[in-house]
């Protein structure tokens, strides 16, 4: 597991045990879901890490869970235990394509509804346009960014 530099206890959990662990945390008094996000390490299999960060108001304790999933695996949704997870999980789906089982409303939240592709994946191109600053002669201009077929609009 990657080095944790901020002193927050972190545990890697399998996707099947996520709901149980989160239920335990809920019972333990972790009242706030601080953050729910994912990041992508395409060189590693499984590529996605879905990270959950919880906070307990009583003693200001924090704890972090990580679920490592591949592209086709669905992570159980924790919206029933922590209602704000709804939008967070939608964002993870939108940006990475990770699906959440039993999510009440899993659809894109930040990108337009008809966007193809999941922008924050490492293999999704940054996009944008080639800017000609006029400094190089035309022969040396950069080639336009190539969006592979079927990955984005």
């Amino acid at each position, binding site marked *: 597991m990657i080095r944790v*530099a901020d002193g927050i206890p972190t545990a890697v959990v399998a996707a099947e045990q996520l709901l149980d662990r989160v239920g335990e945390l809920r019972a333990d008094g972790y009242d*706030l879901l601080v953050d729910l996000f994912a990041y992508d390490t395409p060189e590693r299999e499984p590529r996605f890490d879905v990270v959950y960060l919880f906070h307990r108001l009583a003693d200001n304790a924090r704890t972090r869970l990580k679920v490592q999933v591949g592209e086709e695996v669905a992570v159980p949704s924790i919206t029933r235990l922590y209602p704000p997870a709804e939008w967070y999980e939608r964002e993870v789906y939108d940006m990475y394509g990770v699906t959440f089982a039993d999510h009440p409303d899993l659809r894109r939240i930040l990108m337009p509804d008809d966007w193809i592709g999941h922008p924050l994946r490492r293999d999704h191109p940054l996009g944008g346009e080639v800017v000609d600053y006029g400094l190089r002669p035309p022969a040396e201009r950069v080639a336009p960014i190539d969006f592979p077929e079927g990955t984005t609009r």
Partner: protein
Amino acid sequence: MTVLRDSEPTLPPHETMLLNMGPQHPSTHGVLRLMLDLDGEVVVDAHPDIGFLHTGIEKSCEYRTYHQAITLTDRIDYLSPYSNNLAYVNAVEKLFGISAPPRASWLRVLIAELHRIASHLVFVGTTSLDLAASSVFIYCFREREELLRLMELLSGVRMMTSFIRIGGLPADVPPGFLEGVATFIDRFPARLAEYDDLIRENPIFKQRMVGIGKISAHDATRWSLTGPNLRASGVAYDVRRALPYEVYGELEFDVITETAGDAYARYLVRRRELEESAKICRQIVARLPSGPIRIDDPHIAYPKRELIHSSMESLIHHYKLATEGPIPPPGEAYAAVESPRGEYGVHVVSNGTNLPQRVRFRAPSFANLQALPLLVRGHMVADCIAALASIDFVLGEIDR
């Protein structure tokens, strides 16, 4: 029609009308699309639709060095840009295992509190503008202009200062800045009294804000609200006290809470936080230590300007930092600050190269806005505006 899961809704016996408070609206505080299910004038349900300001900042940060990403972070929560910078730099400094020297730390807190005052002034001004008390808007922006003038004196830029570097600050404060801050803080209580005269006990303001958008402490924690929204419901959670960062552990200030949990309570919390921020600024100006404003490690922090012109090594270090950027050891770190909206956190994942693997911005307004349907159910459309204004969200940080 999506329905929130926290309660079983009872649909009214007749149909509801879907009203679109579209992305372009004077009172949505940005490009928020709010779809309201109305039964006459009464809101049955509200569905916020976000994403109209999605800028791809998180992805852009993956293509910038750790230093270059600082300027991108300014524009996330654009009403209080320094808290964004501070959280990001704190996270990167945790990755490196360093911390800024004391003078830099005190100055960072000073600038952050000045930005908090500026942000709360915008809140008071725009909330009053939404409720048609437009003179308060002009008054608040008068103070804000004074603050922006100070920021311009400090860094040359009015709003997006980025006056921070990994390991400290780019430069020491110019002469006149601390005196300007002291003058501003001295005049501030009288100005606050002016705003109070205008709206705090104003019966129209109270009638439009008291009892509107009520949320209990239980619901507020359940929906993970943070910041003044949570504190207005009675939960005394402030990141500056709970998980102190920079020099907040050495400063005296109160965590302001109210119990009512309605829009007026949220206004009161922010209004009283203005005084607390002024108190903090006064303490900092009085107790500011002297010393260096950047750490001495040339692999992380830029060397001093004078040395670049005289020392070859400094020149090389500067060149390497400017082109390649600092390279933290692999790892991840999360740092949170108390922005005017709540807990603003940045999670940085480093893979040992000069570009970050992932930079995640935990925006407080993202969670705060999710609770909106709870706040507006059962209210009329005009009260919906007041409730929306009282959450004080910024679409820039919701959509990133």
